[in-house]
């Protein structure tokens, strides 16, 4: 039987070390909503989302209360809208009405974000894909809870450089649309290489076409728990360090597995995956950068950071995989800048640069995340940064992403406030040299040789 020390340990993690379940996300297929009439399409989408997800928030709160574990977010992801709206939408404005519908449905069921205003264009763009992408600035500006993502590359298809170029321009447009609010709408937009079909985390969640009609995914968290566990093994060798991370990750993930199974049972929706991610928040003691410091770095970004992060990421997976029957999504440590106090401190101390962050994304999920850059950065430069990130994902056969925030009217030395879980960020300098001629070439970069495995 469970003893008092085990109960004490679990509750200490929850009460003092910020252990929580970061999100329960219901993935909903909208393929059966497709219609050539826009009004009917919107009605069907609204009805399907509000029917399937109607009890999500209530069930989430019940589980929170009965197990005493906070579930921070309840969210929804849907089939990429470029696929759903193609038959009905004749203009970017038509697509934006679907974003309105998603926003209204999210508000009706009480979820804080809904993902899937997305297009998958890793090899080429259909007319619908392009219209959806061109509607993103307007769609994100006029909605509150809709998140958008675009998959620009994959190991199998290479990099769609036309789309990379377009996204540089679109990102600046999104920034311009919300310039009176420090360009915050950019944080609802992310670009991917090798985007997973079952990611529960925003802004990049969408419900892939390989998925069932509706499915429950859970994203766990717990950087604070790992950090506290490591405080007890200061100065010990790497074997002890790795074992400690692994054991802690196991415990954290078991909670996610329990919540996922319970949510699935109570909502009568199949369980999909648990995403084993260390997702930080700006709260003190909930930082991935602090774990890196506990491993032995003065600041995240110091030499050794990439190795420390590689080790951390690998041990989290090794511990987590055994704790859950199905693992998927992004599964790894997140290194967002604005959402992690330790990372913000590292930027403020000039300990970390955009280039070091790029190197770190080679060994962890996901990519350049929540990074504020000067508002006068050229579109082609943004496309260049995106292309680099896509190349890392393509060659290393992993998911990579970029969520950059060019803050219009602000430059290096300024700070932007995003609010709540999104935190704040000092604006980071960007390499000033041009890549315009490279980005303007047009076409696509072919898939790497090691993708030809057949």
């Amino acid at each position, binding site marked *: 039987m*469970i*003893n008092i020390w085990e*109960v*004490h*340990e*679990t509750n200490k993690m929850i009460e003092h070390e910020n252990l929580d379940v970061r999100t329960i996300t219901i993935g909903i297929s909208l393929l059966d909503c497709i219609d050539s009439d826009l009004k009917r399409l919107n009605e069907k989408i609204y009805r399907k989302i509000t029917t399937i997800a109607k009890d999500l928030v209530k069930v989430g709160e019940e589980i929170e*209360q009965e197990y005493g574990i906070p579930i921070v977010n309840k969210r929804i992801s849907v089939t990429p809208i470029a696929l759903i709206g193609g038959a009905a939408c004749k203009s970017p404005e038509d697509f934006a009405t679907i974003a309105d519908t998603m926003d209204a449905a999210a508000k009706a069921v009480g979820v804080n974000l809904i993902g899937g205003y997305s297009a998958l264009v890793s090899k080429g763009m259909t007319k619908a894909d392009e219209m959806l992408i061109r509607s993103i600035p307007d769609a994100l500006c006029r909605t509150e809870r809709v998140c958008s993502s675009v998959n620009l590359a994959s190991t199998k298809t290479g990099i769609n450089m036309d789309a990379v170029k377009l996204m540089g321009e679109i990102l600046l447009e999104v920034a311009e649309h919300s310039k009176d609010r420090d360009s915050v709408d950019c944080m609802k937009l992310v670009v991917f290489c090798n985007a997973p079909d079952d990611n529960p985390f925003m802004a990049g969640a969408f419900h892939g076409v390989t998925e069932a009609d509706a499915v429950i995914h859970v994203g766990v968290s717990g950087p604070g728990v790992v950090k506290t566990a490591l405080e007890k093994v200061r100065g010990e060798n790497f074997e002890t360090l790795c074992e400690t991370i692994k054991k802690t990750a196991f415990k954290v993930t078991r909670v996610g597995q*329990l919540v996922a199974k319970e949510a699935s049972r109570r909502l009568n929706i199949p369980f999909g995956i648990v995403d084993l991610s260390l997702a930080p928040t700006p709260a003190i003691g909930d930082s991935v950068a602090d774990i890196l410091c506990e491993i032995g770095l003065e600041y995240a970004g110091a030499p050794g950071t990439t190795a420390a992060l590689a080790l951390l990421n690998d041990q989290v997976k090794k511990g987590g995989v055994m704790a859950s029957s199905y693992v998927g999504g992004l599964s790894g440590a997140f290194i967002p800048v604005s959402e992690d106090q330790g990372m913000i401190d590292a930027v403020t101390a000039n300990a970390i640069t955009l280039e070091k962050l790029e190197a770190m994304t080679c060994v962890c999920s996901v990519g350049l995340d929540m990074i504020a850059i000067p508002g006068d950065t050229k579109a082609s430069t943004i496309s260049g940064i995106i292309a680099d990130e896509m190349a890392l994902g393509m060659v290393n056969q992993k998911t990579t992403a970029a969520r950059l925030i060019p803050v219009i009217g602000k430059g290096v030395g300024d700070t932007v406030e995003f609010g709540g879980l999104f935190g704040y960020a000092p604006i980071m300098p960007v390499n000033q040299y041009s890549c315009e001629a490279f980005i303007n070439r047009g076409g696509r970069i072919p898939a790497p040789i090691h993708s030809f495995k057949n």
Partner: protein
Amino acid sequence: MEKAVDKTIITVVGKDTVGIIAKVCTYLADNHINVLDISQTIIQGFFNMMMIVDLNTSEKPFAECAKELEELGEVIGVTIKCQREEIFDMMHRI
């Protein structure tokens, strides 16, 4: 047929005073909640008690018992939490 055992862990944490266990047990008895196990210790100067109880014998639903125990805790000056046993089982047992 009798319902299966529905184990819930009650934890009581706070400053040690006379009668904490008595008051909690009185509440449980009044609500027909059977106690399966009790252990108690002092952790970092604080009174810590864990009880494993079976809520199935009670007529009140989980949420109501949890709320009333929380309120009782406020009256006594301690924190009382109710959690289903599975969260601890999942974390500490393979």
